[in-house]
């Protein structure tokens, strides 16, 4: 049986019809990981015994005709900044290299209850900071489409695992594009929910006003199945909100799609532009109304504001890694303990953001940097609100360039440009999907659909329309 052809819906059918057992399925994926992960390095932890016990439990449920969900027995990979009890959770950092999760993240609890089989923890840029997974303290992950190129980041391990069929689906976290970008670079679907739609309890915090957990999968339906399973208000995350089911249905011909002119004026690979324009044409052919719109603050200005806001929140969230509760180096004094653990435990990119954040928040600079960035954030939100009065969805390229080679982006500024079409979405807290729309010299290209707050259903429906039309 070809692992490439397996989706959640297909597996569920096979399991129900007893043509396959969850144990057989998990063993196939474990073999695939054993065979291919040496060259891809997508996984940081794979606990065989745990996988098999979960699979056996899934089979027991199916046999006894107990409460079985569409996710029962489904092999899922989890980004290593989401806590899965008793498994290591490193956040891709030396500081947490021996940290074992003492509890499950809320969404993991939900998925375990539904009978998912967690295959293992995937590689990421350290503390989710980066666009290529090159910042992992444990080595980079490779892009399955071209082993000399990055899989994107920070959820590179998750994207690579799904694209290489080492998992049916995966979880990642998206703060400035970290689910959508690696999905685009690897050729999978990547989805970021509205801020608050999914609980962040048990997600190692990076930037608390930007972080969201999202699925990476082979099809839009699979991504939606996972989103539906993990969404919901959580008493342990005060920023979480109950997403209400939408009351209406709509046809493709009723959709109004906005194309932001500023996004297409930027430095984009011309072949990417061509493929994205072809995707737009497909929507027109389906009957959707396409019109040009303007988002004046949502590319360069949004990226500049993001640099500051992200770094400021990072500097606060990572203050806890001081060698007292986390870390392993001893110090001669308290100050020495701090300086050593943080100096030697963190990688360069993490240190850079902590320092930039502290600078932007410090006396004398707070107003010029942090306050100003938050005001620009309000302008970004305003741009979107204005436009969403006229259109239902916004369609943009996902990335300005194709997956690049290892070591190609020599500084953080050029690295962060990978996210130029994505960060405004996090600043405004909107939902968005990156959807594969073709290849250039075997390298995947995707477009992005951005939706109104809590209208994930509209995005999924529109993305499915495109998928079906292919």
């Amino acid at each position: 049986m070809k692992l490439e052809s397996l989706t959640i819906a297909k597996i569920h059918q096979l399991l129900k019809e007893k043509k396959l057992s969850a144990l057989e399925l998990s063993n196939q994926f474990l073999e695939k990981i054993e065979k291919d992960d040496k060259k891809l390095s997508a996984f940081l932890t794979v606990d065989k015994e745990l996988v098999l016990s979960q699979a056996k439990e899934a089979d027991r449920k199916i046999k006894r005709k107990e409460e079985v969900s569409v996710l029962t027995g489904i092999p899922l990979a989890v980004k290593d900044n989401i806590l899965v009890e008793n498994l290591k959770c490193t956040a891709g950092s030396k500081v947490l290299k021996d940290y074992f999760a003492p509890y499950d993240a809320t969404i993991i609890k939900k998925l375990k209850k539904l009978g998912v089989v967690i295959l293992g923890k995937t590689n990421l840029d350290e503390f989710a900071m980066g666009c290529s997974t090159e910042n992992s303290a444990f080595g980079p992950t490779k892009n399955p489409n071209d082993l000399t190129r990055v899989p994107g980041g920070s959820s590179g391990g998750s994207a690579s695992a799904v694209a290489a069929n080492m998992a049916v689906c995966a979880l990642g976290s998206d703060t400035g594009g970290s689910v959508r970008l690696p999905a685009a670079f690897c050729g999978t679907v990547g989805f970021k929910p509205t801020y608050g739609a999914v609980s962040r309890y048990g997600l190692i915090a990076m930037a608390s006003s930007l972080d969201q957990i999202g699925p990476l999968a082979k099809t839009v339906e699979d991504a939606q199945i996972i989103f539906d399973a993990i969404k919901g208000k959580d008493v342990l995350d005060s920023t979480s909100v109950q997403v209400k089911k939408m009351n209406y249905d709509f046809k493709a011909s009723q959709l109004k799609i906005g194309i932001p002119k500023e996004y297409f004026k930027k430095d984009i690979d011309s072949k990417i532009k061509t493929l994205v324009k072809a995707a737009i044409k497909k929507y027109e052919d389906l009957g959707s109304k396409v019109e040009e719109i303007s988002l004046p603050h949502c590319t360069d200005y949004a990226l500049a504001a993001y640099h500051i806001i992200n770094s400021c929140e990072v500097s606060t969230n990572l203050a806890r890694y001081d060698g007292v509760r986390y870390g392993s180096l001893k110090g001669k004094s308290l100050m020495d303990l701090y300086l050593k653990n943080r100096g030697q435990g963190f990688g360069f990119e993490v240190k850079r953001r902590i320092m930039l954040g502290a600078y932007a928040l410090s006396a004398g600079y707070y107003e010029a940097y942090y306050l100003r960035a938050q005001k620009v954030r309000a302008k970004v939100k305003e741009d979107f609100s204005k436009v969403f009065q006229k259109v239902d969805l916004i369609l943009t390229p996902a990335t300005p360039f194709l997956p690049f080679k290892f070591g190609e982006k020599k500084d953080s500024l050029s690295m962060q440009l990978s996210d130029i079409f994505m960060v405004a979405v996090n600043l405004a807290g909107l939902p968005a999907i990156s959807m594969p729309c073709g290849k250039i010299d075997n390298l995947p290209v995707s477009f992005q659909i951005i939706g109104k707050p809590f209208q994930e259903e509209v995005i999924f429906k529109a993305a499915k329309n495109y998928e079906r039309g292919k």
Partner: protein
Amino acid sequence: MISDKEVQHIANLVRIELKKEEAKKMQKELSLVLDYVEKLKKIDVSKVKIDFGPVKIENVFRRDFPEKEDEARIKKIIKMIPEKEENYAKVKSILK
């Protein structure tokens, strides 16, 4: 260009020890980003009300009532503390 004195000052504030080459690289990188974000000054934000969050912000309350934590979980957390004594994390003295 941010000065190396400023770099040292921030490194001290955030309790991070930087090696000499790292400090130099940090100086370059920080200056690069600070130059890039200068563009934010071009935007007229005089009439903007600050927005600290992505979507609507609402205060969420609960009763100030201590809840009993799971014993097994407490044990797991304590097990991972680098230096400890009984159930306490051990720290070097702060006050002399």
